[in-house]
């Protein structure tokens, strides 16, 4: 296995003085499903954005498939970026645009600007867009406005857009943080599928350790911009968890994949009944 991504001594200091990434060195092998975990503000987003230089690193090196990203010229950077797909917490679709045009945007890096201005996508690109929308199960929504879709559907458009790039690497910045648990699993399964079937390396930041354990082949935890843990998902025990998230943290589950009701203890069930009773409304809170 060859390293698809090598990060050496990466540092990002924002003008405000925040050291978001503080000397991270990593090697990611082709085909891995890497899950980034850590508290809010631990540098996950900054690290992901330094990889494709949406955020300009302060120092250090990022090498993608043998090409030095950090030293690349603007044109070289665009050629590198088009092989790195990215999906975002807020989906980042053009809300007023159609699902199809949002998907086609994934091909922009391969096509000249005049074609964008004339608004004439290549026939093969349109065919590929339908293909990719079909893969994530929303080909029938191709002509709907992006903001008419549900959150989970919008994220699937985001994945289809990234697939249009024929990426070797997929960066996912908290792709399910705005979604409910059931939808989270459906989106994560599409990421799992492109990782397993297409062999696309995935680096995905997540808030829920249960999701990290279920989908990751490797978990990297960040704490104050530095790597606090790097290993197999099942190696994170109670002690490691407290190291990463702090002494007061308690692990919460995002819930099972199928939407079965979770077994509740008798007390919990009683409290839930109290809370939902209109006459006693809110008593459980007090």
């Amino acid at each position, binding site marked *: 296995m060859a390293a698809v991504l090598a990060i050496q001594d990466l540092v990002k200091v924002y003008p405000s003085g925040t050291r978001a990434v503080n000397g991270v060195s990593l090697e990611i092998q082709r085909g891995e499903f890497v899950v980034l975990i850590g508290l809010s503000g631990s540098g996950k987003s900054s690290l992901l954005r330094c990889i*494709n230089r949406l955020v300009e690193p302060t120092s250090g090196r990022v090498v993608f498939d043998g090409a030095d990203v950090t030293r690349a010229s603007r044109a070289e950077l*665009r050629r590198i970026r088009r092989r790195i797909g990215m999906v975002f917490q807020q*989906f980042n679709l*053009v809300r007023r645009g159609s699902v199809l045009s949002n998907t086609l*945007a994934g091909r922009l890096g391969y096509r000249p*600007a005049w074609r*964008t201005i004339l608004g004439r996508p290549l026939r093969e690109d349109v065919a590929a867009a339908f293909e990719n929308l079909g893969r994530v199960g929303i080909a029938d929504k191709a002509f709907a406005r992006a903001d008419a879709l549900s959150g989970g559907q919008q994220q699937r458009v985001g994945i289809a*857009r*990234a697939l249009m790039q024929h990426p070797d690497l997929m960066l996912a910045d908290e792709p399910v943080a705005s979604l409910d648990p059931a939808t989270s699993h459906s989106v994560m399964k599409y990421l799992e599928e492109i990782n397993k079937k297409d062999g696309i390396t995935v680096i995905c930041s997540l808030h829920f350790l249960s999701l990290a354990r279920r989908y990751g082949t490797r978990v990297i935890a960040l704490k104050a911009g530095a790597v606090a843990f790097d290993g197999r998902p099942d190696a994170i025990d109670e002690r490691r968890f407290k190291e990463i998230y702090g002494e007061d943290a308690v692990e919460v589950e995002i819930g099972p994949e199928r939407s079965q009701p979770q077994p509740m203890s008798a007390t919990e069930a009683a409290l839930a009944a109290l809370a939902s009773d209109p006459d006693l409304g809110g008593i459980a809170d007090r």
Partner: protein
Amino acid sequence: MAEYFVARGLPVPAELSQNPLTHWRRLIVIALSLGVVYIGLRITKIDLSSANPEYAAGVIGQLFHWDFSILTPRDEFETFWDTAEGQMIVTIFLGIIATVFAIIVALPLSFLGARNIMTGNVLTGGIYVVVRLVFTIIRSIDVLIVVIIFGVLLGIGSAAGVLALAFHNVGVLGKLYSEAIEGIDPGPLEAITATGANRVQVIWTAVLPQIVNPYISFTIYRLDTNVRLAPILGLVGGGGIGILLFQSVNLLQYGAAGLIIFMIVVTVALMDFASAQIRRRLV
């Protein structure tokens, strides 16, 4: 009020014993305001002794004795376009043409005046500052002053009026357009940049769809304002129905002036209504 602190042996905060109505800062503001009004009245010498209520009442009466002869050509040399309604239509189009000229200049400049487009390096950052400064300077000169200057440069008439209005609106529309760009959701920009698209493609794909509606809304708002301003331009030599109004007042033809004022009021009200309706549907 202080019991909470007294009961716990804590120092009572000074804020509790203050009456905000008699706070010294408030008293100073009131005193300063009164001082400004007093000095203003002294130095501006407002003098109502030369007012003539009976004459004024007569003029106001005449303003409502509308002289409908201005609605038809007075002699064989005049055409429809010399009549009051002809000049009203000309005036509306003065406002429209001025808006169009302003759009042509302000539209491309607005991208150079948007902070989120121009950040990156020192050169683009410098261009941003210069463009926004130019917008501000242009806006700070009142339209009527610009018309007077353009009247000197180009001669009294429609050219001075239209170009002066257009000039002023480059400043106004430029600022509004730039702020519309600065107000867009940065998410799609980031996402399209990440696909490897170049700057032109990013603007075309991620910025344009987000600014079309605000642009149309601002443009209609300014079109409305410009048609409203256009009659006044004539008073200082900018062409249109304003000249007719100016002439009839000078010739003491208050019946004609009254009718012209009425026509302007109706036109402006209609523009205002139409503009509000269209913009409401856009949001």
